[in-house]
């Protein structure tokens, strides 16, 4: 019985891939009046559907492990359906339907976790519904402008109309993306969601916001085709070589990534750190979308792909650790490298990609984004992005050091075993994909990015060879980098062994040079908890870490509650009050009307 259910579940998780492969032709489903759902597969949505098709099964396999009962499976399938509807939709109503199905099914999935608190659940659903309703509002504005729901570029758009159209839609998508200060729901929900589901939240759901943002650009006059004159550029003119409106979006993205990066460094919880880091990564994509040039959109798409793979890998691996140790805090783990080697390599590959280190694809996408910023001559944005992407090294190092290196800080960490195969299979697959993509960025561009760019009317990046990533500003060859590094590594290692002398293995992990002292288990040797404390002495970082948006939202909630209490006072259970009020209102209205009537 359960086996059958799990089999069905796997089949369902493969449905996006099936859709991607076999979907052809458009389907129309009338609702009422002139509202009709059109389903069609455009290259842009095909790209994001590809992400879902990749991610869905890989995220589903670990779910087979935990004895999750059928509701989880059903909701996950529903979530996939929602995403497919969203991506296939050729009109806004279909988009909204998919969006909402995605929202509430993911919310119900979030509730499956025993750790979810009321505050988390409420912040998740309310902010996401705010996004959804903002989307609906924008859609209605669009409808009143064009008289239809089909997604296509608006013919001509005044600045104010543009604002009225862009404003709500951008709000909706930015909430989904989780940009500061709308990111409240992201960390807590990613953290408290079921461990195997956080991967989906971070890897797939956030990408839907990206899809929306790119879709938003295509709405504007001339779509993206017009280069600078099209997209955001068509709205409020240009700043340097980029669209002025995009400059704002760019800063939103970069500030998001900076804030999120520093918050991530300060986290004590692995999943929370990953949550903040995914906010930061998506911030880069937002910036790139703000630039809106061919390079930038290419970089954004590439980074979306890479980030999906990386976050699936990292969240799955961390879920494995949590499964085996039951611990999620940096200060409790340590020295797992000997206990969970495969997981170690998973996290290693993940953070190398996250840090954007060559030769993994994280560098390719960042390279495209950097070059696009230079091309747009937005150097200050570039510097800010460098800040966050360099600061990212800190939390990347912490992510690998605290759990895997150093000293085991808890009995669970001392006795943990390697994660089960349901976790390892996706990890290995993802590692392979990442390495392959890092070797052949040109191939990745050719297969995934260029079709979308051509469909959007942008000039494709093109790639002379599989390994080479080419831009007008010059490129690099992933194969050569990897080959040179690998060759150097082999040569150096062999040379090292040619040298005379003995290698001596440390007799115990506590055989450390410790100022002549002899440390032991009781000595606090694991630096995982305190890492990055001195950052707080840097004024900027201290300011960022010292502030939070929670107070704002809490205040909002308090005020609403107060208003509710005030109004509830009206609904006292005393009939005489009711009647009195009714009569008073009657009299008042009568006098008003009569006076207004002027008799």
């Amino acid at each position, binding site marked *: 019985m359960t086996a059958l259910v799990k089999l069905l579940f796997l089949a369902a998780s493969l449905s996006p891939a099936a859709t991607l492969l076999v979907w052809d032709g458009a389907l129309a489903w009338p609702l009422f009046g002139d509202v009709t759902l059109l389903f069609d597969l455009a290259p842009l949505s095909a790209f994001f559907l590809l992400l879902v098709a990749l991610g869905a099964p890989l995220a589903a396999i670990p779910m087979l492990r935990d004895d999750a009962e059928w509701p989880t499976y059903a909701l996950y399938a529903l979530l996939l359906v929602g995403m497919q509807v969203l991506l296939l939709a050729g009109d806004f109503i279909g988009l909204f339907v998919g969006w909402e199905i995605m929202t509430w099914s993911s919310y119900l999935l979030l509730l499956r976790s025993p750790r979810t608190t009321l505050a988390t659940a409420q912040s998740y659903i309310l902010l996401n519904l705010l996004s959804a309703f903002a989307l609906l509002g924008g859609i209605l504005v669009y409808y009143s402008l064009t008289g239809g729901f089909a997604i296509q570029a608006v013919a001509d758009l005044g600045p104010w109309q543009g604002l009225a159209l862009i404003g709500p839609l951008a709000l909706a998508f930015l909430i989904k993306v989780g940009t500061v200060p709308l990111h409240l729901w992201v960390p807590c929900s990613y953290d408290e969601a079921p461990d195997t589901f956080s991967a989906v939240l971070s890897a797939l759901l956030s990408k839907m916001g990206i899809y929306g943002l790119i879709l938003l650009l295509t709405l504007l006059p001339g779509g993206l085709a017009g280069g600078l004159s099209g997209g955001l550029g068509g709205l409020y003119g240009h700043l*340097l070589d980029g669209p002025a409106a995009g400059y704002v979006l760019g800063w939103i993205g970069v500030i998001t990534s900076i804030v999120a990066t520093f918050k991530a460094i300060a986290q004590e919880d692995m999943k929370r750190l990953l949550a903040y880091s995914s906010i930061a990564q998506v911030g880069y994509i937002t910036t790139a979308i703000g630039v809106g040039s061919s390079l930038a959109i290419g970089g954004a798409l590439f980074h979306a792909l890479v980030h999906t793979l990386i976050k699936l890998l990292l969240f799955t691996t961390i879920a494995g650790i949590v499964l085996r140790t039951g611990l999620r805090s940096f200060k409790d783990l340590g020295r797992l490298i000997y206990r969970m080697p495969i997981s170690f390599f998973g996290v290693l590959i993940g953070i190398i990609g996250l840090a954007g280190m060559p030769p993994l694809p994280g560098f390719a996408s960042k390279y495209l984004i950097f070059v696009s910023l230079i091309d747009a001559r937005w150097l200050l944005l570039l510097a800010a992005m460098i800040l966050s992407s360099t600061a990212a090294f800190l939390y990347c*190092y912490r992510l*690998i050091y605290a759990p895997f290196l150093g000293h085991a800080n808890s009995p669970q960490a001392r006795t943990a075993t390697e994660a089960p195969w349901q976790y390892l299979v996706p990890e290995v697959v993802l590692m392979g994909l990442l390495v392959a993509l890092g070797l052949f960025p040109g191939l990745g561009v050719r297969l995934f990015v260029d079709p979308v760019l051509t469909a959007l009317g942008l000039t494709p990046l093109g790639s002379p060879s599989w390994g080479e990533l080419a831009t007008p*500003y010059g490129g690099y060859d992933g194969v050569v980098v990897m080959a040179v590094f690998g060759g150097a590594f082999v040569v150096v290692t062999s040379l090292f062994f040619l040298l005379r002398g003995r290698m001596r293995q440390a007799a115990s992990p*506590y055989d450390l040079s410790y100022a002549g002292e002899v440390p032991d288990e009781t000595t606090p040797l694991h*630096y995982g908890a305190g890492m990055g404390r001195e950052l707080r002495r840097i004024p900027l970082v201290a300011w960022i870490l010292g502030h939070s948006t929670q107070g704002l939202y809490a205040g909002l909630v308090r005020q609403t509650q107060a208003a509710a209490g005030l109004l509830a006072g009206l609904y006292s259970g005393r009939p005489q009050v009711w009647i009195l009020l009714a009569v008073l209102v009657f009299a008042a209205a009568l006098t008003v009307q009569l006076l207004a009537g002027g008799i």
Partner: protein
Amino acid sequence: MHYLLDIPAMIATSYVLGFLFYGFYRQYNARIQRRWGPSIFQNLYDNLKFLFKSETLSHGPMFFFGPMIIVSGAVTTVLFIPFLKDSIWLQGFSQHGNLILIIYLFVLGPLGNALAVGSSGNPFGVMGVTRGLTRLMGLEVPFFLGLALVMLQYETVSVHAIMAAQSSIGEWTLVTNPIAFLVILLPFIASMNAAPFDVVGAPQEVYAGPRVEFGGRFLGVLMTQNMMLSVGKLVLLVDLFLGGATNLFILIAKAFALFLLITSISAVFPRLKTEQAVDFFWKVPLGLGVVGVVATVWLQ
């Protein structure tokens, strides 16, 4: 075949220049302190001595691979930097690389080594690594901004093209875009791990920082890569700002001039704390960079 000669040539050049420069550095410091100082080959002696230590303590596989990774990173970096202008020699694989790639390769090795430091389990080492990463966070911003000014000036990220664009002294980036040079100068000193930004390996404070557990041949390996990488960085700056070099002697001369400037600055300043350094980078060089951006980009 060409590569078989070229690659060893590049590695040898960077190594030899490396220990000579550092030997000079120690003598120079000694003279400033009214000492005789060691011989100019002292760094070679130290390095070889460590490489021939008869015993080396290792803390496990990851600890062993760290130094290997960092040397491979240094070699890779050097091989992606063109040493000479319009010459087929000492080019390595620089046609397949670019400036941004090189900047990232600079930190590739140290990050790999950081894993080894972590796996040694010595908290002082990890403290040093954290300081190093924090300092990196501080210095990369103005450093990259300055380089971005250069990239924007020549509208390319290829070192070859930038070098080729500066044929005469009048066209050196140092002359045409001095502000960019000023912006990157101090961050560059920090990236060379020279005073006053050398708090990472503070011997008494964090017990030699990242290197605390590395002895014997590992230490020799680390010294080797340090020398090579420093030379690589110097050569890169020569390529970018001093118009590159057509032959080895000009290269040495220009690199030495640059090195002299750096050592002179670093010899006379006391050490900064980590957060002081970062704050400094975000105020002075970055502010200068912003000024540069406004002056050279916005006002055109």
